[in-house]
Structure formats: structure tokens, C-alpha cells
């Protein structure tokens, strides 16, 4: 009996493995299996409910003791250009024209989506980021040395940098009001929203709620829950009205 692997057997084996890999494309869908922490919290933003009052922005500003914005919260001119979260605003609402009716608008609130498998945390060389079992992705500024890899890694362009602070700049982003959640309260923006456009709860309950909303009103909603699988699943999920 021959010892080891013959050349012929080796080629057969590698051919078989290679063939199996090519013939099994569903392995590329493995990212859907990232489930995150069980029973973690999340938020569901229903864009069809949002009326663009910016109460969430105001509440976020107060809860995080951020500086007053240059354009006041009740000034609609802020919608004239598209904004993204920065060091002075962890959440922003942008306005888009409804293509069916120019007098109607669709508003979209953006903030950190608190991914189940955060790319910012993966990219951080010093583990300054932490995905908490409650859901929020937190950042420890005492560890950060300012490489800003997280800003590049984030698929949603969320982490911002306090550039104006020359000596102690840090990364800033929404923390889903982690201290408030720990105290059994709602995130500030959720509590402030008059339209109920943001719902706070267990992520798995919210996905069911989103599904139910779409099912009950298929004319109104796009049949997709954004964030259910995107970027491996996010704690902050969205449903939107049809266009």
C-alpha cells in the first residue's frame, strides 16, 4: 500500500472541492445567518409616518447636550441640502420630493444603525467599539487614537469626527441613548416623535411588526424591511412608503 497521497488522488480531491465550491453559490448568502445578540433592542422607523417636524433632532440635541445648531429646529430651509450626521447632530432628517406628487414629501431620519456585526468595530485596531447585548454600538473615546478607520468602514457613513477639537478630537455617533435604555426609558428621539414614526422594542418583535404593517397595507409600503439583512442585519430597521 502506497503511503501518503498520490499526485492523481491529490488532483482528484482538489478538483472535487473546487467544483463543489463553484456549484454551491448559496454559501455566499451566509451573511444572513448573523443573528446578533438574542433579545437585543432596536428601533423601527416607518418613513410613511414621518412628517419632518424634526422633534427627534431637537430631542437628540437636548439629550446629548449638543451645541445649538446654526439653523433652528423649526426652520424648513435646512431641507434645501442633504445632510448627514456630524459631531453636532447625531441624527438628521432629510427631505425628498415624492415623485408622484410634487407637493408631498418623504422624510428620512438617519443615525447610527447599530449593526449586529458592526464594521466599525471590526475595523477598529484597538477595540474601542463594543456591540452591547442590549443593541447599541458604543464607542470608548479613552481607547481611541484617532485613526478613523471606523469612518471608512461604516457602510452608512455614520461615525463623525469632532474636527474642531484640536487637542482631544474623538469619534461621535448615536449611541441609541444607551444610558436611557439601561434605565428602562426610551431613546430620546423615539420619545419625542409625535407621529410614532419610530418604534422602540425588541428587534425580533419589530421585524414581525414591520412585516405585519407591510402585509396589512401592501399598497402603502415597499415590500422590504431595510436592515433585516443589510450589512448583516442592523438594530435600526426601516420600512418605507411606495413610490
Amino acid at each position, binding site marked *: 500500500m502506497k503511503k501518503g497521497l498520490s499526485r492523481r488522488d491529490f488532483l482528484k480531491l482538489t478538483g472535487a472541492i473546487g467544483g463543489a465550491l463553484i456549484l454551491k453559490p448559496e454559501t455566499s448568502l451566509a451573511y444572513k445567518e448573523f443573528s446578533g445578540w438574542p433579545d437585543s433592542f432596536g428601533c423601527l422607523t416607518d418613513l410613511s*409616518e414621518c412628517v*419632518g417636524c424634526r422633534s427627534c433632532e431637537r430631542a437628540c440635541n437636548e439629550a446629548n447636550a449638543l451645541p445649538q445648531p446654526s439653523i433652528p429646529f423649526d426652520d424648513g430651509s435646512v431641507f434645501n441640502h442633504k445632510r448627514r450626521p456630524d459631531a453636532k447632530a447625531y441624527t438628521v432628517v432629510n427631505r425628498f420630493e415624492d415623485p408622484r406628487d410634487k407637493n408631498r414629501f418623504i422624510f428620512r431620519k438617519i443615525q447610527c444603525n447599530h449593526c449586529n456585526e458592526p464594521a466599525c468595530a471590526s475595523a477598529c485596531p484597538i477595540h474601542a467599539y463594543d456591540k452591547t447585548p442590549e443593541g447599541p454600538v458604543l464607542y470608548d473615546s479613552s481607547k481611541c487614537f484617532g485613526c478613523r478607520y471606523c469612518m471608512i468602514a461604516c457602510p452608512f457613513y455614520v461615525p463623525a469626527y469632532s474636527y474642531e477639537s484640536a487637542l482631544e478630537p474623538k469619534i461621535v455617533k448615536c449611541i441609541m441613548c444607551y444610558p436611557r435604555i439601561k434605565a428602562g426609558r426610551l431613546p430620546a428621539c423615539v420619545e419625542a416623535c409625535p407621529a410614532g414614526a419610530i418604534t422602540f422594542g*425588541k428587534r425580533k418583535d419589530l421585524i414581525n411588526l414591520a412585516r405585519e404593517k407591510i402585509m396589512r397595507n401592501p399598497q402603502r409600503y415597499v415590500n422590504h424591511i431595510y436592515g433585516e439583512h443589510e450589512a448583516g442585519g442592523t438594530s435600526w430597521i426601516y420600512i418605507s412608503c411606495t413610490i
Partner: protein
Amino acid sequence: MKRLFLISLLFLLSTLLFYQGAGSLLYPKMIVLNSISDKYTPVKFDHGKHIQFSQGCSGCHHKHQKNESLSCKDCHNVTPSLFKNSVHRNFMACRNCHSQFNPEFPKMPDLKVAYHRACFQCHRGMDSLGVEPKGCTQRCHTLKTQKAERRSP
């Protein structure tokens, strides 16, 4: 004389009851919604006017005349004998169900959301509501700080 007085009293009472049965006197006309007024001033809600606009109560009182409805007594807390006459007077306040938001039951909105959703279903698009943030203060209520600023020159 005493008998006449009693008869007229009975007559008055019966007419009053008749009108109650007809429902014309029963609906509140103007309501000040101030139970959750915190940052904004209370809303003066003209209920009478909205009755004229709306087609039936179910447009706003969401559980009314729908398949998903609760049984009548869940909102109108009355005995069957009283039910026909004074059902509207015994209407249960929205806040009895819609109090605080509980993440365990994410489908149940709190009072603030329940109020706003009822209004937004028609008012969205009026007076730039749903177009820009000022719409809210133009149509229904002003910020309390705004009011204070306006008062002080």
C-alpha cells in the same frame, strides 16, 4: 299648583332625555387637549366642527365600527339600561388605553402618538404640515418657549 309644577318638571326632564337620545346635545363642542402639554401649548380642538367634516365617528375614534373593534362596553362604560341614552357621555378617554408606550407591546402607541396620528391622517399637507417643521406650530400649537419669547420684547 304643586301638581302643575311637578308635571312641568317631568315634561322638562323628558324633553331633556329626548334630546340626549337624539344625540344633539351630547357631543362635546370644544375640547382643550392639555393632558400631555409639555413643550407645546395645549391644543384647542373644535370637536363640533370636526363632526361636520368627518363622515362618522370612526374616522378618528378608530375602534368604532370596524371588525377589529372592542366590545362597546370597553369604551362606553355603562349599564345596558343606560346604554342607549347616554352612551356618548360615558365615552372612555383615549388615555385609558393609550397611556405610556410599552416596548413589550410595540403596536400600541402612546397618547401623544395616538392623538397625532388621528390628526395627521387628514391634516398632513395642510398649512405646510408634512412639508416643513413650522407646519405644526402654524396649525395646532406653538412651542412654549416661542410664546415666552414673543411675549418678552
